């Protein structure tokens, strides 16, 4: 027993999903994060999302960089392979893994330091390549693991624990992703599981790169008065713009009841449907320009726009689609399908004379 008593992450029930698994089967190692860290709530939401989606744990791959946030891949789905790589370079490792084996569900978890400082270039280029993965930024405005320096997502005027205010303008991953042509862009809050889970589910099923910026407070270094990434600040300034109900293909009808109000539907590549329940008037989450303007507007007002902010269904620009990669994962091709053999070689040799 440590002197810090941590409440074990609670799961709603031990119901079974379509694979006959309970949420327990989606758990991982004991978290070593601080008690109350937002990241642990994201972990809990991920467990629910994967469970509800019936993703077989061994068919998922958990990818991360370095940071408290990047550690969270160890805390769920111990039946999945995981790769805690190097700081800021998870996008490339995931791109490579996906290149080799397109049949897995890739979940990448990163922090604001990992993604927006050292890893900014890789994040942008993974978006550009539209690599199929769900990319979660557990955004707390600081470098947690190295003890609380401001990250590039720290807002102007947000104060550090010792009082000094950040002066530099933040990089907003949502605006950035919209600018770079990301095909799925969302923002949520670790403290809002009801909103987070459906977005995670939609992101996991998106045929391309799905980015979710999750405000995930750091209780040790950035949850005080004056911080704009604290639980309190986020709760008070969160404005839900567009909620998403994710409707997996075969459950389409049974979930219909969840829908209410003005609905926009986007059909995904596998036929499943995401319904945007607009909570902000006039919000059209399939219009990139409008999404950008709206999110920017919220930022200017000091509001945190959350929800599934933008999405293009059935993306045609996913990396393998553009490459025309064979459907069979490359790792499953037999050597005989890959090696031309000596007869071909000898024919070729004629060209080198």
């Amino acid at each position, binding site marked *: 027993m440590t002197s810090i008593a941590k409440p074990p992450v609670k799961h709603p029930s031990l119901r079974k999903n379509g694979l006959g698994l309970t949420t327990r089967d989606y758990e991982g190692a004991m978290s070593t994060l601080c008690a109350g860290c937002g990241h642990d709530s994201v972990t809990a939401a991920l467990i629910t999302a994967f469970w509800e989606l019936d993703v*077989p*744990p*061994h*068919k998922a*791959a958990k*990818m991360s960089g370095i940071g408290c946030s990047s550690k969270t*891949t*160890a805390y769920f789905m*111990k*039946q*999945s*392979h*995981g*790769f*805690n*790589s*190097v700081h800021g*370079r998870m*996008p*490339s*490792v*995931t*791109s*490579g*893994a*996906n*290149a*080799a*084996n397109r*049949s*897995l569900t890739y979940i990448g978890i990163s922090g604001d330091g990992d993604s927006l400082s050292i890893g900014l*270039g*890789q994040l942008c*280029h993974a978006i550009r*390549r539209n690599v199929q993965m769900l990319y979660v930024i557990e955004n707390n405005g600081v470098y947690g693991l190295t003890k609380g320096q401001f990250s590039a997502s720290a807002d102007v005027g947000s104060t550090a624990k010792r009082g000094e205010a950040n002066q530099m303008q933040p990089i907003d991953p949502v605006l950035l992703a919209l600018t770079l042509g990301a095909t799925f862009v969302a923002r949520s809050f670790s403290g809002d599981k009801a909103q987070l889970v459906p977005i995670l589910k939609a992101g996991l099923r998106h045929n391309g790169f799905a980015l979710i910026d999750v405000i995930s407070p750091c209780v040790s270094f950035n949850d005080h008065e004056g911080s704009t990434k604290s639980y309190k600040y986020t709760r008070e300034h969160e404005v839900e713009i567009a909620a998403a109900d994710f409707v997996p293909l075969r459950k389409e009808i049974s979930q219909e009841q969840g829908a209410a109000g003005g609905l926009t539907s986007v059909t995904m590549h596998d036929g499943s449907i995401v319904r945007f329940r607009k909570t902000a008037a006039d919000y059209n989450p399939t219009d990139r320009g409008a999404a950008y303007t709206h999110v920017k507007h919220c930022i200017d007002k000091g509001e945190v726009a959350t929800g599934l902010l933008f999405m293009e269904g059935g993306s045609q620009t996913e*990396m*393998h689609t553009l*490459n*025309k*990669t*064979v*459907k069979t994962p*490359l*790792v499953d*091709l037999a*050597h005989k*399908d*890959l*090696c*031309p*053999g*000596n007869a*071909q*070689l*000898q024919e*070729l*040799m004629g060209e*080198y*004379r």
Partner: protein
Amino acid sequence: MSSQNDFSFKIATVNGTGSASANTLLMQSIFRMGIPVTGKNIFPSNIQGLPTWYEIRVSKDGYNARPAEIDFVVAMNPETYKQDVKTVRDGGYLMYDSSWPLAEELHRENTTVLGVPCGELCVKTFERDRDRVLLRNIVYTGALAAFLDIDLDVISELLREKFGKKPKVLEMNFTAVKLGYDYAKKNYTCPLPFSLKRMNATSEHILIDGNTAFGLGAVFAGATVGAWYPITPSTSLMDAFTAFCQQYRTNADGTKNYIIIQAEDELSAAGMVIGANWAGARAFTSTAGPGISLMQEFIGLAYYAEVPWVCVDVQRVGPATGMPTRTQQSDLFSCAYASHGDTKHICLYPADPGECFTMAPQAFDLAELFQTPVFVVSDLDIGMNDWMIPRLEWDDTYVPNRGRVLNADDLAKLEKWGRYQDTGGGIPSRTLPGVGGKGAFFTRGSGHNLNGVYTEDSPEYKAVLDRITLKFKTAANAVPKPIVASTGNDVGVIAIGGTNGAVTEAVAHLKDQGITVDYMRIRGFPFGDEVVEFLENHERIFVVEQNRDAQLRSMLMIETNTNPNKLLSILDYAGLPLTANVVVDAVAGQMAGVQS
């Protein structure tokens, strides 16, 4: 000094003006005449307008090193006349484009100057500016055909193969060849005292560069993922892999059994290759020095997390950006000891394009067997110059050695599985994502124990590191063995990679001078038993390498505890392929010193 099929000539031109294809045509013609030939392209790091040279060595004995002397200089670039004139050997010949007369002060005693007004002939004959520039190269080719007795039929045949579908172009090329040929014949005694005569020494050979050969080898080895960032002199390697994949790996429905990603930089390329190998593919990257520097962190990750991958380093002149279009062997340290912390890596050292091909499957096999990064340490000379080598052969019985990969069935037989446990020789077993169950594990570059669990415990940490050390020892005798030519001498020579031609030639020349030495060419790192034996069995050993800091010699000392006093360095690091005389002079000089 008159000689047949044993001389060298050099053509000085400006890059971006079409001379490259003319030079290839010359070399190929000689090759088709059955005569052993080698060409070295010495080009600038720029796209158009700077001096460039092409050196062709004809050697009936098959020596392929860069020639120490140039018998005949073809000076087509007035800007470099001055220096080009100087590089003709005493008694040699200089041809120049006499459309622009050579200034008096540029003449040289003891050199026969042959003016051929290539430019003027073109202006008179062809109308379009573009044709005049391009065909000027073909005119000098024609003149050389006369001077050196190149078979015009062979030239015609080659031109026909190339331009067969463009009769007008072909026609103009024929005309240009004739212009040069006739002018030379008419104005000078042809051929010169050195010239060509058909042989039959090339029929089982090909002309190929090392980058192309590795790209091809990677296809045969079953690599499915390539990730890279353009950098001279490695770019053409991934270009070749791409072209061969297009040719051999495209399915009938247009889908591809491969994916090649141009990454945003070398860090990303390394990450992709590591990710792809981790997922179970054979994946590789190719780069040069600056890329190796940028990949250091990732290399350490793969070393410690034991993820296989293959990286080809086509070395160029360092440090820093250095001279991107010159050759060196100066990344030996950066590859072998890449990354912070205690790290050592398997390296393969191909000597020519043939070995680039055969070492491709070896590299992937070793990477997967030992679950570690493997470097194929090539260089610009090997990678980008055309070498005459025996036709490539593929053994159709080859089965990729994927090493100790456990699938679900294998795992079912085990009660418990630990990712980093020794399964013999320090080698652990691994699983691929997708297998689940007890095969699932968490890959991390942070401290972990033999079961892959996170640790900060000293003994647990040490157990893993020590097992990796053991694994590396095992690898020493799994990498390609050195090639040893020994007649039991006390004196030995050691070299690696592309200097092999020069060293082989030097050994022969030394023998002619009465100095017999043994020769070992190292092909892999860590060094195996044969390397240690050679070091032990020789009293004095010359270590030939193309870098300033004697990196190979240092590695030999560090790894084998050889007494440094018996290891004598022969260093050549100014950026050009090695010539045999450097080795001959150094060895002979030393031996004389010892004897006197």
